[in-house]
């Protein structure tokens, strides 16, 4: 608070220098602190996309919640998807505080989602046609999420860093939940085994895309330089993807499953994984809401948002 008051007397340039000094020294920026406009905008974009992705991410798994094959699995996946909605809520609250000075609210977030202005994560545009996909989402998609979120645990923006801490702790359970489903299938009947291998084949490209393109030359834009400059994250997209390979490729292989990329190998000399690039033009199409399930899931969210409008109206009246 004392810093905020002190800041009022400074020029914008001095405020900026002071801000950079604070984050360089590892201090956390709080919601009411002065911050550069592009820092705020970057955070709003990043966090609202993260939050809405958690919420849209509930939809591919939602299909499998009522269908889970045993009481234990039903309870597990119910808890898991509930956590995801909880993460969405936590993150949207962080985004809402950042948007407040700009006069924007959660309603804007929802409308931006429906209009396509606010994008959600590429993986949640994909199909999840079998129980194997439900397991794989928990195992590898949440596994990838842990890697990308751990990278921001020390983010310069305090409220985001604190939310991520809680989220990452829960994601670990999700990855275990997913792994447990996958192990049961991989060690089960040939039909169950096929279910999980098909899911890996189906999800592989989306998992490569998960971390985003290596640099802006691939898709035209990349926020990673800004987020690294502002100490929101530390590693690049490619470094994260490599971490993901290092952690999960041995696990996939140890279950007797295969990776659908014959060129995939670890190059000892370069100390990195060599792999076939996904089709990045397809990635751009997917996040523009032209993925296999983009329209359907947006429609589901939008239908239900409108169906329930009367409830929100009633609550607003009661305020």
């Amino acid at each position, binding site marked *: 608070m004392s810093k905020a008051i002190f800041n009022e007397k400074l020029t914008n340039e001095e405020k900026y220098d002071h801000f950079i000094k604070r984050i360089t020294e590892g201090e956390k920026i709080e919601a009411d602190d002065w911050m550069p406009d592009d820092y705020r905008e970057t955070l709003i974009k990043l966090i609202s996309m993260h939050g809405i992705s958690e919420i849209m991410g509930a939809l591919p798994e*939602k299909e499998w919640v009522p269908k889970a094959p*045993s009481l234990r699995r039903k*309870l597990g996946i*119910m808890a898991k998807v509930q956590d995801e*909605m909880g993460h969405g809520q936590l993150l949207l609250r962080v985004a809402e505080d950042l948007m407040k000075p700009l006069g924007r609210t959660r309603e804007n977030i929802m409308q931006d989602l429906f209009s396509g202005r606010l994008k959600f994560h590429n993986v949640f545009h994909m199909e999840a046609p079998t129980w194997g996909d439900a397991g794989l989402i928990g195992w590898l998609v949440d596994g990838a999420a842990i890697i990308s979120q751990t990278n921001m645990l020390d983010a310069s923006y305090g409220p985001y860093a604190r939310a991520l801490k809680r989220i990452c702790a829960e994601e670990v359970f999700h990855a275990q939940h997913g792994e447990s489903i996958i192990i049961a299938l991989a060690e089960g009947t040939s039909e169950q085994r096929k279910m999980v291998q098909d899911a890996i084949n189906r999800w592989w490209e989306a998992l490569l895309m998960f971390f985003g393109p290596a640099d802006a030359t691939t898709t035209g834009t990349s926020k990673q330089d800004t987020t690294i400059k502002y100490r929101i994250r530390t590693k690049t997209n490619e470094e994260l993807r490599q971490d993901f390979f290092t952690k999960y490729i041995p696990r996939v292989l140890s279950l007797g499953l295969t990776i659908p990329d014959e060129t995939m190998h670890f190059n000892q000399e370069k100390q990195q994984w060599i792999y076939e690039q996904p089709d990045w033009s397809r990635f751009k199409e997917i996040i523009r809401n032209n993925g296999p399930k983009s329209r359907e899931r947006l429609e*589901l969210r939008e239908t239900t948002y409108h169906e*329930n409008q009367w409830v929100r109206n009633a*609550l607003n009246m009661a305020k």
Partner: protein
Amino acid sequence: MSKIDIHQMDAAFKSALTDLLYQLADDDFILAYRGSEWLGLAPHIEEDVAFSSISQDTMGHASMFYQLLEDLGEGKVDDLAHSRKAKDRRNAILLEMVNGPGHYLKKPQYDWAFAVVRNYFYVQMKKIRMDSLKNSSYEPLAQIAINVNLELYYHLLHWRTWFVQLMQAGDEARKRMDAAINRVFDDFGGVLSLGPLEDEMSKSGLIEPEEILKKKWILVMEPVFDSINVSMPTNFGMKNGNGRKGEHTEDLDTALSILSEVYHVNPAAAW
């Protein structure tokens, strides 16, 4: 009545106990399933988190009741939950009814007013039932009732809050709530019913008689209606039949085929 263990049971006691457990398990199981269809579709994100937590609890309760049935030699819990036919289910019909037109993945026109009223009225009855079961002559059931009760406190608080708030919101909300109340009352008799073996259940000290439980429900609910200046309906109907006798609707058939789809790929496999 002294507490009874599994080895001393006579046949009449055992069939009354088994029937009661099926009612308790099937009620919670199907309502938790209906709750899980709402996942991601609730009026706001906070409610999604709360409602799915309640559905999880409810599914957990079903699982505990099915476990008691497994312990009595009725079969494995997962088979009891997933493979019994509709005619063998003992849940009240009100709890199997769809959330609204549409599918849980496609154009769901789910009715939040119906969700609030159905859940609130049911949970209140469940609470009264658990209070009674705390003194059940079947000790394992009494133990579970104590644990279930701890969670019902929150479920009740949640649904009562919604009920009162939406009833007082006027206009469209009130119209929808009134319609939901009528629908729920039309079949609430099925929730209150303990089925054909009710006499044996109360005689053997498993649970209090239906009439007494019903009076307790009215006694708790009337002041809530009074507080919002609404007179409580008194017609506890069974418009769509009595689920306690194995009478059910198509809604249950459809639900069972969805919830057991993966299980039926191979019921013998480990999942």
